[in-house]
């Protein structure tokens, strides 16, 4: 079993959900997260857009853009798949999220040792053995 963790843009949750469902991965989790990448955020551009060059109002998005930590809102998407499904799932996520601009996100693949179905109490080493295919 593998855990695929994708950090994607906030507005990409719905397209990603649909693309994954179509590709046969209906099960997922996501949570709100904030983060930063390798390149610093271009705050100048945001300041110009807000027509407020030099200062960002503290009551709006100011907190996440303040000095110290400049973090952008993201969604952390998690899905558990079998080993051989990783490639297709990763491809699907990339295709649904790719705009070609920095900030599209990252995908990480991690090993999972065991999975339990709480309803039945079963323990399995393969995701597909845990899921009811209806």
């Amino acid at each position, binding site marked *: 079993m593998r855990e695929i963790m994708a950090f994607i843009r906030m507005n990409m949750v719905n397209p990603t959900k649909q693309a994954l469902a179509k590709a046969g991965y209906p099960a997922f989790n996501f*949570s709100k*997260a904030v983060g930063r990448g390798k390149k610093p955020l271009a705050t100048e551009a945001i300041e110009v857009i807000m027509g407020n060059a030099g200062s960002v109002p503290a009551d709006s998005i100011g907190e996440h853009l303040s000095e*110290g*930590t400049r973090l952008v809102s993201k969604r952390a998407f998690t899905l558990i798949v079998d080993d051989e499904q990783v490639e297709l799932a990763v491809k699907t996520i990339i295709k649904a*999220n790719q705009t070609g601009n920095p900030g*599209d996100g990252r995908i*990480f693949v*991690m090993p999972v040792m065991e999975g339990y179905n709480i309803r039945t109490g079963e323990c399995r080493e393969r995701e597909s053995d845990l899921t009811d295919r209806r």
Partner: protein
Amino acid sequence: MIMIRAIVRPEKSNVVLSELSDAEYSGVTKEEVYGRGRQKGIIVGEVHYDELPKELLIIFANDEDKDDIIKIILKNAKTGEGNFGDGRIFVSPVLEAYTISSGKAGL
């Protein structure tokens, strides 16, 4: 490649993040989480707080940067000598990484 998850006090996460960025480890994700530790939360009189707010920092790094990153977190998330609730750090293996904008593999 490894994933470092650090659960730190909310008031300490800004210090940790800016120190990490100064050390050129700028990529990081932050989530708000709630939890309790081995002390079963905080018990004040008859009130039991067992969902204490923490912040979860997720950092993906190359194996050789592990010690450096952990040292930075340990140094900056600490509030004093032996205070409970300063948090935990967990390290787990990562098999693959992809950048969505370019579609390329690797960190």
